[in-house]
């Protein structure tokens, strides 16, 4: 396991080295490896496919310009890249909260995107997608500060300390926001009948 991890780190460093020198294939490999994760993270904050797409592009443009700053000794590529992505996406989310005219452009259309993405139309798959869209709707109803903490903790699975580093707030605040966010989300999902006793 350790050897596998070390090899992944070496590969990450090698990919960055090549991409920095202008190797298109190496850069494409980085984009392919992380685009889905970053797009989904952006979608969880924006609830809007187009906004998530734009945000994902912005993240990769920023990453491409910051490749010089990547130092393999400071951590593996995934950590560095996701840290950068999280910071940008959360900054954008905060900005959208301050400027509501830019946010939640077409939440209803977005949830339909889930259904369009079903493809085969299998009943179970449909239910799964429906559930996902309801959960996203529930998350969207949380206050911004609670939503950020719940996404980072329960979906991104960051530790308390990592959340403290990303949000630059005290650990006690992080803990209490996670606690409050979970309770609020549970109450919202109960009202939506997503969670039943």
């Amino acid at each position, binding site marked *: 396991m350790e050897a596998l991890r070390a090899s992944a780190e070496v590969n990450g460093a090698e990919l960055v*080295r*090549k991409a*920095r*020198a*202008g*190797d*298109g*294939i190496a*850069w*494409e490999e980085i*984009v*392919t490896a992380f*685009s*889905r*994760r970053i*797009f*989904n993270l952006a*979608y969880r904050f924006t609830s809007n*496919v187009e906004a998530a*797409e734009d945000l*994902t*592009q912005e993240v*990769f*443009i920023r990453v*491409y310009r910051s490749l010089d700053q990547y130092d393999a000794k400071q951590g593996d590529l995934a950590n560095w890249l996701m840290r950068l992505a999280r910071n940008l996406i959360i900054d954008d989310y905060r900005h959208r909260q301050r400027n509501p005219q830019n946010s939640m452009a077409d939440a209803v259309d977005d949830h339909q*995107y*889930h259904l369009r*993405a079903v493809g085969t139309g299998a009943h179970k798959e449909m239910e*799964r*997608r429906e*559930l*996902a869209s309801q*959960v*996203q709707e*529930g998350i969207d109803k949380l206050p911004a500060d609670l939503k950020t903490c*719940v996404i980072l903790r*329960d*979906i991104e699975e960051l530790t308390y300390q990592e959340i403290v580093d990303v949000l630059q707030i005290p650990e006690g605040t992080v*803990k*209490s926001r*996670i*606690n*409050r966010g*979970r*309770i609020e*989300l*549970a*109450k919202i*999902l*109960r009202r939506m009948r*997503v*969670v*039943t*006793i």
Partner: protein
Amino acid sequence: MTKNKVVNCTAFEERLSDYLEHTVEKDVRKEMAAHALQCPLCHGLMNEVKNAIAACRQVTEPKPALTRLDAQILARTMPAAAINCDEFEAYLTDYLDGFLPANVFHRWERHAVLCDDCTDLPGEVVRSLAVLVSYKSDELPVPFGLHERIMERTLGTVRARSAKASWSDRFQEWVRGFSIPISVPQLAPVAMMTLFAFLFVSQTVSADGSLSDVYAKSYQLAEQTYEQSANVWNGKPMDAPIVNQQPIDGTATVSNTNANN
């Protein structure tokens, strides 16, 4: 078994279970107890079986949950020890994570049993966390064309193969791999040490403290060293005075000492 019969080891083993369950006749029980006291092997066996039964009971019998009645009695008798709904919610994550301190734990559980508004909340939170886990695994696919747009905006082309590293860029990147092992925070002490070294050399070797004089004197010193080496090579003694040479400032002491000798 009758009173006259003596219980042997085989009979003791056969009826051990009944003996431990208190289902044997009174007289047999007495005889078996007497045998257990006399026979260390049967005594040991009896203890082993007793311990095994106790261990099984401990595993299978769960700790009884706090009943509503117990909670009500405690709430009536110790009202000061109760917590309110806000406190209950504040401790919820700690309770689920198993970090709740013992003194709060029982009060929290009591509130969970007694409060109709809060009793379902822990279950709901656990279920919503489970829903989040399944939501997390249900990732959306990357929208069609997003990769191409990213490549276009970063590399200027959608075809990654057409973007190849130039030789100069590759060379630069290669050189970058051999970075000086002095990190930026270390540069200040290194610069200070270099400055002190220069000042020391210029004040001790150079006559007027200037950089050009340091070079000139260094050149003379190198010449002298070469001449001394050449003399040694040609068989002249090591301590022979060097003719037609002016001592260099800062090295005068050594040369003069040699001359005096």
